[in-house]
């Protein structure tokens, strides 16, 4: 079973106390719904269904992705930083595959 592609994250390495940081995430995935309306044979459904963003182990943002999410899912959200923290971003798909990337933001 092939693995999921390596996600790309844009997150600052440092922040000031109380600063709001922007987090951008992108992962390559075809997001095949398995739906065809033209009578052709539909390919097997192959979708990323979940993104979970954790900060120091606590879930701060998650997404349930359905058919209307585009291929190569892209998400941007905003987090207020009070102290140095470790982020982990995990995607999982309908085939049970998962991929996680981590990042540390140092608050000083």
């Amino acid at each position, binding site marked *: 079973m092939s693995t999921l592609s390596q996600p790309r994250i844009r997150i600052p390495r440092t922040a000031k106390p109380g600063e709001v940081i922007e987090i951008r995430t992108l992962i390559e995935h075809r997001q095949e719904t398995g739906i065809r309306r033209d009578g052709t044979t539909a390919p097997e459904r192959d979708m990323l269904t979940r993104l979970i963003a954790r900060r120091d182990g606590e879930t701060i943002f998650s997404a349930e992705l359905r058919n209307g999410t585009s291929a190569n899912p892209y998400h941007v959200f905003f987090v*207020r930083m009070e102290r140095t923290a470790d982020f982990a971003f995990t995607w999982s798909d309908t085939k049970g595959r998962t991929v996680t990337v981590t990042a540390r933001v140092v608050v000083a």
Partner: protein
Amino acid sequence: MLYRRRQFTRGAVALLALPWAAVPARAGMSEAELDAAIRELVGDAAIQDGDVRLSLPAIAENGAQVPLTVAVDSPMTPADYVTAIHLLATRNPTPGIASFRLSPALARAEVQTRIRIAEEQAVIALAVHADGRVVRAAASLKVTTGGCLS
């Protein structure tokens, strides 16, 4: 430009004033299916128009990658924050786009993403506040090339 903007605003307001039933759902999705999807997400809660801003291009050249921003007015404190934002399509083959679960760790109740749009239609955003209130916004767009393979 001013005129066009006014036209657009008027259109958006008119759309907001309509119940779901007034948005015809055609491409393989019935109104009942859309309504069932909404109820599955927010239960029996009353849905009010309100403090949700849904931004989409008026015309999307590529329906497979349509940029979307949804933002809700909320202080995002542990006592008063937006717990979830749901996005639904009214004329895609299926209504579900995505559900976002938020927490007070987020500085704003705002998410940017990219969606698929099969044909000209309205997109609906439902925001659930921590006190149980559900508010909605809708935005319509045209599409040059549909984004759902068919």
